[in-house]
Structure formats: structure tokens, C-alpha cells
């Protein structure tokens, strides 16, 4: 299969990219690795007139720590995240999520920003960044703004990015003391996408009660979400096995649940609760020194 013809633009700076994005508007499509976009273009389900390849914006390819945040450039590949020693130490959830994405080849080219902006309902990153209370930086000709992860995913493959905006970075707090995080996933055997994917970060207080917990869930609904009902049940409580299980049972509360060939809505709801509980247990184990 072969894409329809298009014009290709390869901006060398963010400034140039922003100009192109504004210029082409609806007719332009940004590409940041291309592993979501190109298959769609080859099947001719997507046929943008202009492809704006952000791949050469090396300024957006970094992982660094400053001012109490870990910041990751949007063009950082899944593999760079997977293999980052900084992240392994300060935010193991991210490398753990990265290694679950697609396959080795996809992880070499696919990028964090590309995946987030695409907002596939079964992608892995959304669950991870929701669990990390991350913020997403959007740049436009008018400047920049930070969008909380919770506000970023608007609907099926739809984000809070406005026309003319480019997702440039993600920042998140490193793992605090007495905290643990993890990402667990059931893969769809054909596509490798998440039937369910759960990211959890959990922190305990001095009394070993749950001080903070954030749970991101993907694969279940039209967009990734925070399992707020579960979090509410757990906050401030001692994390007994029974409490975790009872809370996790609410993992898909209020979510319009996907149904496909592999898993019905009902089964997905069940998977969400099982995987949320297991992820909580694992994160707890890691939080307990």
C-alpha cells in the first residue's frame, strides 16, 4: 500500500515548525516518528496535503532533570526512555512503559510526543503520564503553555492541543521517597496495543498509609483516564490487600467501555479491575523499603 501524494516539510527549528503548522492548518499533519501516521496514510485512511516532519528538531530530544522536575523532549524516542539510566532511577514507570510499546523497531523511531498527540485509545504513554501527574508543554506562535495530563486527553484520538500548537515536552515529578510505581499491560496479540494498560504511582506516609496515589488506565475507554474512584477509596488509608482489591473493583466506574473482537466491554471492565489491583500491589511492594 502506498500513501497519496503530499508535500513534505522538514523544519530545522521549532520556530520554523510553528510557522508551517500555522500556515497549513487543517491541511497539514505533523509527524514525529511516523509510526501511527504512516500506516494510516498507506491505507489511505489519512491523506494530509502537507506532512510536517518534526524528526529533525533535535532540540526536542532530551531527558533532563531540573527544578525538581524531570523533563522529556517530545521527540525523545521510546527506546531513549526505555534505556535512560536517569529515568530508571528516578521514574522507573517510564522505562517500564516504554519497553511494553510495540516492538524494538517501533521503539527506535516512535516518540513520546508523537504518541501522546495521536492519543490512540489503547496507547501506553497516556496511562503512564496520567499516573505521574505529568504536564505537557504546548508551543504556539503566541508562546507556550503547560497542560495537566488530566486535561490533555479530550476524546478518542483527540487532545487539548489547539490548532497551531505543537507538543514540545512533558515534565513530571520524580519518584518521591517511600513511593513506588509500575506499568502493567495485557497486550492484544496481533497489534501489541493495550487491551488494558495500567500505570500506578503510589506514595506512603510515615504511618505507611497511602499518601498519594495516581492511576492511569488505557485501552478501556475512548481515551485514557485516571481511575479517580479507586484513588478516592485509597487516599489516606492503610493499603491492606483487601482494600486494594475493593478499590480496584471500581477501576472502570463511569467509563464508556470499548468492545472489540478481542474483548467485550464487560471483560474489559473486569480486566481493568484486575490489572489495577495488580499494579497497585506491585507499586506498594516497591514503595515499602
Amino acid at each position, binding site marked *: 500500500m*502506498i500513501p497519496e501524494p503530499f508535500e513534505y516539510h522538514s523544519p530545522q527549528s521549532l520556530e520554523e515548525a510553528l510557522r508551517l503548522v500555522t500556515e497549513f492548518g487543517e491541511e497539514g499533519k505533523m509527524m514525529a516518528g*511516523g509510526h501511527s501516521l*504512516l500506516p494510516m496514510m498507506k491505507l489511505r485512511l489519512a491523506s494530509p496535503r502537507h506532512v510536517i516532519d518534526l524528526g529533525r528538531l533535535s532540540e526536542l530530544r532530551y531527558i533532563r532533570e531540573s527544578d525538581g522536575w524531570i523533563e522529556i523532549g517530545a521527540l525523545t524516542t521510546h*527506546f531513549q526512555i526505555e534505556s535512560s539510566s536517569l529515568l530508571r532511577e528516578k521514574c522507573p514507570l517510564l522505562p517500564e512503559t516504554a519497553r511494553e510499546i*510495540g516492538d524494538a*523497531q517501533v521503539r527506535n*523511531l516512535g516518540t513520546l510526543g508523537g504518541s501522546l498527540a495521536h492519543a490512540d485509545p489503547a496507547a501506553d504513554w497516556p496511562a503512564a503520564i496520567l499516573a505521574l501527574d505529568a504536564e505537557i508543554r504546548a508551543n504556539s506562535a503566541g508562546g507556550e503553555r503547560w497542560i495537566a495530563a488530566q486535561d490533555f486527553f479530550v476524546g478518542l484520538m483527540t487532545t487539548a492541543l489547539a490548532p497551531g500548537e505543537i507538543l514540545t515536552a512533558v515534565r513530571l515529578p520524580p519518584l518521591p521517597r517511600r513511593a513506588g510505581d509500575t506499568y502493567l499491560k495485557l497486550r492484544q496479540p496481533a497489534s501489541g496495543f493495550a487491551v488494558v494498560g495500567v500505570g500506578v504511582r503510589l506514595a506512603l506516609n510515615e504511618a505507611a498509609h497511602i499518601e498519594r496515589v495516581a492511576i492511569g488506565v488505557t485501552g478501556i475507554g475512548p481515551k485514557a483516564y485516571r481511575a479517580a474512584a479507586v484513588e478516592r477509596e485509597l487516599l489516606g488509608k492503610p493499603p491492606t490487600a483487601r482494600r486494594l482489591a475493593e478499590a480496584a473493583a471500581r477501576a472502570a466506574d463511569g467509563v464508556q467501555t470499548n468492545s472489540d473482537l478481542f474483548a467485550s466491554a464487560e471483560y474489559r471492565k473486569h480486566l481493568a479491575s484486575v490489572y489495577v489491583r495488580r499494579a497497585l500491589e506491585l507499586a506498594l511492594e516497591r514503595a515499602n523499603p
Partner: protein
Amino acid sequence: MKIRVKINGVTREDDVEPRLLLVHYLRELAGLTGTHIGCETSICGACTVLMNGAAVKSCTVLAVQADGSEITTIEGLSGRNGQLHPLQQGFWEEHGLQCGYCTPGMILAAHQLLSRNPHPSRAEIRKALEGNLCRCTGYQHIVKAVEWAAEKVRAQAEHA
């Protein structure tokens, strides 16, 4: 669009349509047909090549994206005097192929694995090859082939 790509050590310049896929560029313009096409959704890995040393699925890369890069295809893996790469040798020794269609991609994916992890376990080999489908072998001989090559590379390194 004009692009400049170094393929298996030889630089070439071409004027290509932006939509030309890297795999078609390699096969039809550069005449390197060892890279195969197995699906169009970046699942099967038959089209795997090394781009700046990293394994990529060349059916999901535009030729224009590869502008300025170095590409290694299966044809570029053998030594100058035609000596087989340890991975090629391993696939031969351990019967790591049958119809051979997935083999170039499989070998290049394994190449990346060994460059990142010279001592892979069987589970790590299987995980590293999850982006490459083979319908003939049931994978077991491929795993053995990669083990054979890893051993050979280690021995060569010790020797050197």
C-alpha cells in the same frame, strides 16, 4: 526532493517523491532487493534495516526521512571478502530459516540486540524479535541461531 543516503557504505543521491517509502527506495532505486515487504502496518518486520545503527521498519519510514542517514541492509552485512557475519553464519548453522523471506529482517533485528546486549538470554532474544514475524520456523531455531552468533561474537572479541 533530493536526498543523500549512505547505503552499505556507499553514498548515493536521488531525487525522490516525498511519499516514496524507504523500502521501495532501497529495493527499486538502489536495487537492494534483500529487504522484503511483508505487511503495510509495521507489524511483520520483514523490511527491517539499520538506520544509523538502529533497527527500523523501512516500510514505515519515508525515503525523505532517511535523508542524511546511514543505512545497512542485509547485503551490507557480509564482510568485504564475502565473509558471512556471525549472525548469517548462525542462521545457517542452526537452521534459523526455511523460506528465507523474514530472514534479512530477522537478522538485522538480532544485530541490534547483540549490539545492545551481547549476552542475551533466550527470553531476551524472543523479546527482541517480537517485531519480526516468521511463519515457518516456530522461532526456536532462530533463537538458537542468535545464541550461536552471540557466542561467536564473544569468541571473536576475546580473540581480538
